């Protein structure tokens, strides 16, 4: 049995899942896509909806990108990714407006802004553009779910503190005083910061900065090196 578990741990699918859910968690480690993670997480239902929407978009666009990866001309690959991503995002937006109008109303323009959520673009560029469809979908799923779990954590804390409820079910009792600040923008920052702190301390992996994870600009490598903060301008 232990042998079996060991063998499982060293398979590629397991490594991919671990990468997205824990080691390179999009929000905590690589700090990508946090705009939506903070803006729509004052209710658990919104957090879940946003997380699933992003998971779907990243899986679908990674799959398509991987499928046509040998056809995409190198120089215009960014534009191609954007075309694919925005097609899926607009589809999700239309779908939500048609079938779940309440959630669509709550998320507002942030659904459309998934297009510029760097997680989606980052996965297309970093993984799907050089991997098979099967592994790309798995990788996208693990990053999407990693994102969803963090959103779930932030939104549960925020909804509980701000309204005394979770999923609109009152659990704090009537004597609970609502922490109003938790439901507005600053609350999101104050909840996410300790989560990032805790997880990064556990990971012992602190100095991950964002530029390395942004999709590489369409420029020669020498100029990219100069974008590192600290390079004198």
């Amino acid at each position: 049995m232990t042998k079996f578990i060991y063998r499982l741990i060293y398979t590629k699918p397991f490594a991919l899942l671990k990468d997205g859910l824990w080691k390179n968690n999009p929000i905590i480690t690589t700090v990508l896509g946090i705009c939506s993670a903070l803006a729509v997480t004052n209710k658990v239902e919104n957090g879940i909806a946003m997380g699933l929407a992003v998971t779907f978009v990243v899986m679908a666009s990674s799959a398509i990108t991987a499928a046509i990866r040998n056809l995409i001309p190198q120089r215009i690959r960014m534009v191609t990714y954007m075309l694919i991503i925005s097609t899926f995002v607009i589809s999700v937006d239309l779908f939500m407006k048609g079938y779940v109008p309440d959630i669509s109303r709550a998320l507002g323009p942030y659904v459309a802004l998934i297009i510029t959520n760097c997680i989606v673009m980052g996965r297309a560029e970093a993984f799907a553009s050089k991997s098979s469809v099967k592994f790309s979908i798995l990788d996208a799923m693990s990053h999407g779910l990693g994102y969803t779990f963090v959103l779930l954590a932030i939104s549960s804390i925020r909804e509980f503190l701000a309204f005394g409820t979770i999923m609109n079910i009152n659990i704090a009792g009537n004597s609970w005083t609502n922490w109003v600040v938790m439901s507005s923008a600053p609350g999101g920052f104050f909840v996410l910061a300790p989560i990032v702190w805790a997880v990064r301390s556990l990971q012992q992996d602190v100095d991950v900065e964002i530029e390395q994870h942004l999709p590489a600009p369409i420029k020669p490598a020498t100029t990219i090196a100069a974008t590192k903060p600290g390079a004198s301008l």
Partner: protein
Amino acid sequence: MSSSVVLEKRKKINLKALLIDKLKMLIFILIMGSLASALLTTLDDYTKVLEERNVELFFHGKVLSALNLDDGSRDVAEAFQANITIEQIDGRTLYRDSSGAIAFKFSGGGLWGPISGIVALNPDLTIIEGLAILEQQETPGLGGRIAEDEFLQRFRGVSVDPELVILPARRSAVNPNEVDGITGASMTGDFLSDMINKAIKEVRDQLGVS
């Protein structure tokens, strides 16, 4: 001499290859673009009907709840069809129920963004029958509570003669035209009462009631 000719030739081939390369890119992006647009336009046609229906249902539901006809047991579309008659006056839509009560839309600027809602009045436009909020972006937990049922219930039976007043939270209502405000949201309250009074005044003028 011969080497320069070779160079010239190579340049030409490169130029040709470059052109083909550019053309390939263009064709690729055009194909992708038209595929994407075709897909989205089809999807849009399909969901547009649903979306418009949802928007209408939401609005009609709010009209019903302002007129206190929203008992939750009936289908919104059915209840709206059965109870409400629509009148158009000077670009404003009035929703009248069987008892003669009139509901109409009001809107204005709030603290963070636009607020809009529906207010229902009795036939001679002096008493509020009910209130519903369509859209608001006030601070959740403070001004955002204007959309909660508990707050909206306070408006039932309140007089709007001469006009509606939403009090700051530290005072409580004495006169028939006063409503208790929300703690920490006196500005939202002011904005709300202003826009309701303005809409009522306009409707009174339009209907010739004074």
